[in-house]
């Protein structure tokens, strides 16, 4: 709902980046509380597993359906029923509206990862509603 609210009034790009930013702040703080009682993550993959399982379950009440990686810092998360868009349509009808609904989540992931020590670029695309794919690209320090 907040998503819909916020996207009413502004030019598209501006509002997407704002939503992303709101997501980032939320993810950053949220993960700090969520991982309070966790042991240190072993490695990057461990962090990703956390994102796919625990993080996703607390936010969206389900786990990520598929996680893939090229072991070079790119991860692809596939969610077959992404919660924010399940209510919208199962066809391509509103596909041009949907990126707005993904921006917050991209930020959420990016914020979470950043608090776990990983800088990243997160993008999302819709495969066929309501399934969508998040691509995470880890930025390594030079």
């Amino acid at each position, binding site marked *: *709902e*907040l998503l*819909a*609210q*916020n996207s009413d009034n502004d030019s598209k790009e501006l509002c997407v980046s*704002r939503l992303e*930013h*709101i*997501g*980032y*702040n*939320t993810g950053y*703080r*949220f993960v700090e*509380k*969520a991982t309070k*009682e*966790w042991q240190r993550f072993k490695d990057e993959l461990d962090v990703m597993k956390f994102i796919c399982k*625990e993080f996703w*379950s*607390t*936010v969206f009440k389900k786990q990520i359906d598929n996680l893939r990686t090229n072991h070079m810092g790119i991860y692809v998360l596939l969610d077959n029923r992404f919660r924010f868009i399940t209510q919208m349509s199962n066809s391509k009808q509103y596909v041009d509206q949907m990126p707005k609904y993904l921006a917050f989540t991209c930020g959420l992931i990016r914020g979470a990862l950043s608090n776990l020590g990983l800088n990243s670029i997160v993008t999302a695309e819709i495969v066929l509603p309501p399934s969508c794919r998040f691509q995470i690209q880890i930025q390594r320090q030079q």
Partner: protein
Amino acid sequence: MSRQTQKNVESKNKVSCDLFTLTYGSLVAQLIKDYDTTEDVNKQLDRMGYNIGLRLVEDFLAKTNSSRCHDMKETADKIQSAFKMYLGISPSVANWSAANDEFSLLIDSNPLTEYVELPDHMSQLKYSNILPGVIRGALEMVQIEVQVWFVQDCLKGDSTTELRIKFIRKLEDALPAGED
């Protein structure tokens, strides 16, 4: 690891409550950045709340099967149960006016403000201003026009958070457009 997972499942609701609180916090922070005056931020929050209320009431009615309210007392009860449903808190209803058209909701623990402190220069900000908007919007959809405002706010050093709700009038069924 399994112990932690267990614990996570138990506190699932609590955790998503954190998420809600934090998301709202980020939203407010963003609005503060976007708008010049605190007054505008308050207004914007109220407007967002109003839009949420318009839709939320539908969800509420569908989930509770509640019937039409005949007086403000009933309405107050419904609002109380809605707070329980959506925010997990039960505010108490108090301070009825003599004409029974005005009452207060006393909220001891406002989930929106759980980790919030207002810096001094933000003293004009009505942090939870989305709530009055939600109530106003929701009641408008069931043909009750109200005015809602904060009387007291924990964030501003008051002992409790008090929302005042005043009945204005009953909205009549609107004529279809172009028939007046």
